[in-house]
């Protein structure tokens, strides 16, 4: 008898009895708000969606190191420098936790890495904006990490076990990221008139892009419904954006600064925040690769990977040598 190759579920026209059984077990686990673990059967689209989402999330953490790493050497004090280094180091860790989680779905690390280096993979478009001055470290921590946290907290309950557990770890570590950014802005806002202006200018530039981090409005986000049915996503893009804008609208008052959104207000009747229209054409354009720093970010990532090649080779050679002498 010829060896049977496992058939990819979903490809055959008629699901087998086993497939139907597996599908109903999967549906029951999701229905019970339980978790799916790596060795459980899962529908192929679920696996694909998660692999894409988790790896894109990992790439975002890795690329996201760049705008801030760029300011480490120019931090205004040793304390700020240590803090910024710790934060960037955390983002590297987040990337690694997430790559590990993605790998449990069956795609190897090298393949995921390749997808990023060859430009086949996407990452959060916010990191294609440049960080021009020190105040941007404040705005990034407060607004960009703030939006990331608002997005990530519900992901701790994602239906896929390894993703949820990675997010729990990430969220614990994120808590200081937003605060250190806020405190940078607070110091500037209490400084000279020029420093205050710097802080305001940074907020002006990062406000809209941070609101767009939650993704397109619900009526233009075709895959959201499926993600919510699978309990990967727990809240819609607009719900999360609402929650976030409500929080920063209050927080900005403590800074004595303003959000660049004159008509931002809470509509008591609709029970929702009304914010300015976001420029989704720009968002799509940046995703397509035409943002201020897309090319630079990817090139820097490739360069870092190239520069690390000798380290990887040396480590591999050393490991092989060790193994040989152990055998001998």
């Amino acid at each position, binding site marked *: 008898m010829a060896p049977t190759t496992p058939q990819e579920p979903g490809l055959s026209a008629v699901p087998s009895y086993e497939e139907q059984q597996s599908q109903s077990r999967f549906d029951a686990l999701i229905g019970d708000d339980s978790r799916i673990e790596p*060795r459980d059967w899962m529908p192929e689209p679920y696996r694909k969606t998660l692999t894409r989402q988790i790896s894109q999330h990992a790439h975002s953490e890795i690329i996201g190191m760049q705008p801030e790493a760029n300011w480490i050497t120019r931090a205004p004090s040793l304390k700020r420098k240590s803090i910024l280094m710790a934060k960037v180091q955390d983002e590297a860790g987040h990337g*690694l936790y997430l790559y590990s989680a993605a790998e449990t779905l069956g795609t190897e690390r090298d393949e995921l890495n*390749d997808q990023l280096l060859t430009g086949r993979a996407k990452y959060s478009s916010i990191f294609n904006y440049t960080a021009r001055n020190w105040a941007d470290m404040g705005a990034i921590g407060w607004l960009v990490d703030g939006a990331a946290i608002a997005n990530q907290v519900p992901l701790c309950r994602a239906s896929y076990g390894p993703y949820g557990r990675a997010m729990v*770890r990430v969220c614990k*570590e994120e808590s200081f990221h937003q605060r250190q950014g806020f405190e940078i802005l607070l110091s500037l806002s209490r400084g000279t008139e020029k420093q205050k202006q710097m802080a305001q200018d940074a907020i002006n530039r990062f406000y809209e892009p941070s609101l767009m981090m939650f993704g397109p409005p619900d009526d233009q986000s075709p895959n959201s419904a499926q993600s919510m049915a699978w309990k990967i996503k727990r809240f819609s893009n607009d719900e999360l954006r609402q929650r976030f804008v409500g929080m920063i609208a209050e927080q900005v008052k403590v800074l004595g600064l303003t959000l660049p959104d004159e008509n931002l207000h809470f509509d008591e009747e609709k029970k929702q925040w009304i914010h300015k229209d976001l420029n989704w054409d720009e968002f799509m354009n940046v995703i397509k690769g035409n943002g201020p720093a897309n090319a630079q970010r990817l090139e820097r990532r490739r360069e870092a990977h190239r520069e690390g090649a000798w380290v*990887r080779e040396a*480590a591999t050679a050393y490991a092989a040598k060790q193994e040989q002498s152990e055998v001998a």
Partner: protein
Amino acid sequence: MSQKSNWPLWEVFVRSSRGLSHVHAGSLHAPDKEMALRNARDLYTRRNEGVSLWVVRSTDIITSDPDSKDAFFESPQGKDYRHATYYKASEGVKHL
């Protein structure tokens, strides 16, 4: 474009303090056991999360089959007399 490294995968277990057991924290790639241990320290204990680390090659871990879960773990089913709460008659008796 990138050279494949194919470093093996390692599972990381962290003991958070003396007297507690090691708990699975995640996994990582490393070329050998020493690097696996060092990377595990850098990746999973940046905030004093642990006083001890284990790393195990993922391929060395034997797991039970998730699909045969019911049959495999059948034995304790219906044996609630293994729990103290089963013994109702002695409820309320002091120091028992």
